[in-house]
Each structure stands twice: as structure tokens, then as C-alpha cells.
């Protein structure tokens, strides 16, 4: 799963008052029959693997022989004696911290530009949305690697202005920044979600603000931002979760280097599991990631009460 949905999860969203027929045997049976593909997938590919990975995190396991129980040794080693853990976590936090706000800001600006009703807007929308849609593909990663090389296009353009560029990818100071830029460029789905949110803001709000003489900035601060905050929150939560899993570009473009400056956590985990075949160790890393992401998401939900505005609450910030 790479991109998320458009609205904040509401636990009781499925419940619909009024139609109470639940409990009758037939309807139960049909309902479970219809959701059975998902249920099967949930148990087989989600729940069981989570439990299994929890167990494996306390073992040493190379796929070849049986998992060997070693208690909390994996965790002790990760926290006590693995410089790569600290390094990759630091790199990943840095990545998340810069790329998530950057991407949110950029996609919001693009969405607002595309929300104008101009003739031929469909074409602009396609032209802007499409490049970012393929941004995750390996073809683009290859192109990116070419563009930002020492003799790449970026430096050729800079040379026209008399600027001597660096090897953006081979330089440890700029490599992570280059990946952040690539990630920001994949703004398509975030932008579409913003765009859908913008379209839902009632036009009357802007009209009455205009009557009151509000300037564009004021309209943005007092109408657009609050009305958009649930969508913003949603993009923020899924953006953070997605960024913690960034893999392809680090794997293809930099392979974690130079000097581990782009050694993302997902890459670390991948190498532990599928290069060194330390499945137990990798599972422990996965569970640490889960705890970090869950904690951040919980904090996000908690803090959201102070800035996310739900119209249905009668206009007060919940």
C-alpha cells in the first residue's frame, strides 16, 4: 500500500442508523461471504505475519534451519551495539522531517493553482499530475541518477550560469537532499487529495468573505486552511507512515551511500533480511519501526484535536 484514502478513519463509519436487520442468519452469512476475500487476506497476509514477526524478533533465524529462541538478544544488540541502526534511524528521521512538510506544502500550492477554473484546466491537471504519478518508477529513478550525476543535466544547466555543480548523488552532504527532492516530486496523490478537498469547500464562504472585504491571504488563512485541515491531517498521517518506508529510490539511486548518508531504515531492514538472511534481527527492526510509527500516529491524532477543524462539530475546533 503506497497511498492512502481521503478521509480520516471513523471507526463507526459503517454503522448506519435505522436499518437494523443484523443478526438474522441469512444476512450474516451473505455479508461474511462477500467480505471473505479480504478476511482471508487479513488473517493470512496481515494478522498472522504480525504475530509471526513478533515471535521471530526474539529468535535467530536464517530461513534454513528452525528459529532459535534467543530472548531479547536482538533488541539488546540493536540498541546497544549496532551503529547502523542509529545511523539509519537518524537518516530516516531527517528524511521524514524535511520531506513530509515540503511535500505537503508543495502539493497544496499545486492543488490551489489547479483549482482555478481556467479554460483547458483538464490538460494542465493531466500534465502536472502525470509526471508525479510515474515518479516512483524505476525508470524515473534511473533518469534521476543520470540527471544528478557529476556530468548530469543539472550540472550542465548550472554550468551555463557559471556555477560549478557537485556530484549531487555521490556527495554525502547533498545525496539525502536529492532523494528528498525526488520524493517531493512524487506529489501526485497528495495533491489530488488536496484538490478534492478544495472542491468541497462551499463557494458561499468565499463569497461572503469577499463581501466583508477580505483579502486573498485572509481568505486563505480563515477559510481554506481550517476547511482543509481534516484533509491536511490525513495527508500528514499517511505521509509520515509512507516516508518511513521509503525504499526504491534509496535502493536504486544511492544504494544507501555515500558513507551511509542515505541509508534509510527500510533499506537497512531489507538488507538484514534478504541479503544477510537474519530474519529474526530484521523482525525485531520491523517491530521497532511499528512502535515508532504507531507512537507518532498516536501523537498526531492527539495533537490534531487542537488544529483540525470538523465542520460537523458545529464550527468549533474540536
Amino acid at each position, binding site marked *: 500500500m503506497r497511498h492512502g484514502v481521503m478521509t480520516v478513519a471513523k471507526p463507526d463509519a459503517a454503522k448506519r442508523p435505522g436499518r437494523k*436487520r443484523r443478526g438474522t442468519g441469512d444476512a450474516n452469512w451473505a455479508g461474511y461471504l462477500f467480505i471473505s476475500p479480504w478476511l482471508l487476506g487479513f488473517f493470512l497476509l496481515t494478522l498472522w505475519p504480525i504475530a509471526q514477526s513478533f515471535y521471530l524478533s526474539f529468535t535467530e533465524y536464517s530461513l534454513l534451519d528452525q528459529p532459535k529462541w534467543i530472548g531479547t538478544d536482538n533488541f539488546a544488540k540493536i540498541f546497544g551495539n549496532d551503529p547502523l541502526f542509529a545511523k539509519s534511524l537518524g537518516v530516516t528521521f531527517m528524511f521524514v522531517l524535511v520531506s513530509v512538510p515540503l511535500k505537503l506544502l508543495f502539493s497544496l500550492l499545486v492543488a490551489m493553482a489547479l483549482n482555478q477554473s481556467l479554460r483547458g484546466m483538464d490538460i494542465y491537471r493531466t500534465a502536472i499530475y502525470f509526471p508525479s504519478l510515474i515518479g516512483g518508477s524505476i525508470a524515473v529513478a534511473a533518469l534521476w541518477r543520470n540527471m544528478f550525476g557529476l556530468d548530469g543535466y543539472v550540472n550542465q544547466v548550472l554550468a551555463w550560469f557559471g556555477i560549478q555543480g557537485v556530484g549531487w548523488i555521490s556527495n554525502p552532504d547533498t545525496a539525502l537532499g536529492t532523494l528528498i527532492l525526488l520524493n517531493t516530486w512524487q506529489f501526485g496523490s497528495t495533491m489530488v487529495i488536496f484538490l478534492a478537498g478544495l472542491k468541497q469547500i462551499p463557494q458561499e464562504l468565499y463569497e461572503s468573505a469577499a463581501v466583508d472585504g477580505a483579502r486573498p491571504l485572509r481568505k486563505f488563512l480563515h477559510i481554506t486552511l481550517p476547511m482543509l485541515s481534516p484533509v491536511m491531517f490525513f495527508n500528514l498521517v499517511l505521509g509520515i507512515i509512507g516516508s518511513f518506508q521509503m525504499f526504491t529510490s534509496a535502493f536504486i539511486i544511492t544504494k544507501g551511500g555515500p558513507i551511509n548518508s542515505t541509508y534509510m531504515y527500510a533499506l537497512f531492514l531489507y538488507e538484514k533480511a534478504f541479503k544477510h538472511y537474519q530474519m529474526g534481527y530484521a523482525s525485531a527492526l520491523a517491530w521497532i519501526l511499528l512502535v515508532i510509527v504507531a507512537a507518532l500516529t498516536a501523537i498526531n491524532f492527539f495533537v490534531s484535536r487542537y488544529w483540525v477543524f470538523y465542520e460537523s462539530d458545529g464550527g468549533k475546533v474540536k
Partner: protein
Amino acid sequence: MVGGRLAQKTEELRLPTLWPATPMWENYSEGWRFSGEYTFARFFGNTLLMEAGNVIGGVLTAALVAYGFGRLNFKLRGLWFSIMLLTMMLPGQVTVVPQYILFNHFGFVDSYVPLVLPHFLGGGAFFIFLLVQFIRGIPRDLDEAAKIDGASVYGIFLRIIFPLLKPALVTVAIFTFIWSWDDFFAQVLYISSIDKFTVGLALRMFIDQFEIQWGQLLAMSLLSIVPSVVIFLLAQKHFVEGIATTGLKG
């Protein structure tokens, strides 16, 4: 960018300049031939085969599950629905090792089963949610009318809901296609023999060579995005509008 794909071979000793001195279409033919034994025709065929499975599986099962959640009443429906939404927030890395072990146990590693099977199991929470939102927008009067005519819940799904879901299903199909085309992590994890390579994996072999053939690599990279471009252009209306109208309600 176009320049890179036509760049003269001698220029490839360095990186290609912005505009090639002499265009060289051989980059396409030589890149396409790849290793000699397997050409890009094979890799495109492999990828499209996998995509066919993914799209069919995703569209069919996501529609089934969404109908269950969106229209039928059953015990614990709210609970299962919340769990489904929660799974979207689960980092994939947590399940990847045990999933690999599971597929390895059944001998499915180095086959397309690990790539395709998940799409036949609901197609992903995101798509189910998208379709549930869409189904909620379909007037219930239609169901009631069909019921009076004697249709069962299965009949209503087949004759009313599924046909009406078409615009949303197009969105699901396109997203599934493009995302699985780009889902490099799963491909690199599960496919190892070259005769089963996808386009993405073949491109990576170009990159991992000692001396990168930039001209051929970029030529094939350009070709590799053609299917996504075609799919996108064919249905671009559905793509942006479809998600805007289905996604954000309720």
C-alpha cells in the same frame, strides 16, 4: 531528456549531453535485445501477464468486499471495517519477512503468486474503502426495487451495484496497474530468475552493470513508462475526477 535516449555511443563514455550530436536509434534496438537470450519483449510480456492478474483480481474482489461492507448488515461489521482502515496505517515492513517465509514455505518464491495473490484478496484496503464510499452514494431505492422484483443480495450485486460501480472500478483498475508496475520492492524480493523478470527488474540490471549503458538504459526507461502513459491518457478523466467524486464523501 529526449537527448539522453538518442545519444551517440561515443558520448556515452561520458554522460550524454542535453542534446545529442548525432541521434542513435540503435540504443532502442540494442537496449531491446538486452542479453540476447531474453529481450524486452519477454519482460514486457511478463509484466503485462502479472498486471492482468492484478487488475482482474483487484477489480473483482474489491467490488465484492466493498458491497459487503457498503450494503449488507452482519455482526461486527463496524469492527471489521475499522480494522480494515487501520491496516492502511500498518508499515509494510512489519509483515514482509513472515510473508516471505510463508510464500517460501509453499514454494511460491520466484513465481508471480506473491505478487498477484494479494490483489485477489480484496485488492487492498484503499480500494475497498474507495468503492464503499462510492456504493454509499448509489440510491438504495434501486436495491429495494430489485428486491421487490425478487432479486437476492447476490442478484442485486450482479445486476445493480456492479454495473453502476463501473466508473469507480476504472479508477481501481488504473491505480492497480500503475502502482503494481512501479511496485519495485515486491518484484525485487520475489522474482530472481531472469526469464521471469519484469521490466523494472530488467532496468535495474542495466544500472547494476559495471559500465552503465546510459543510452540504452534511458531508451528502455522511456519505453517502460509507455504502458502507464497510455492507460493514463485513455482514462484520465476518470482518474482525477473519479477520485475526486468518490473519495471525499462522508
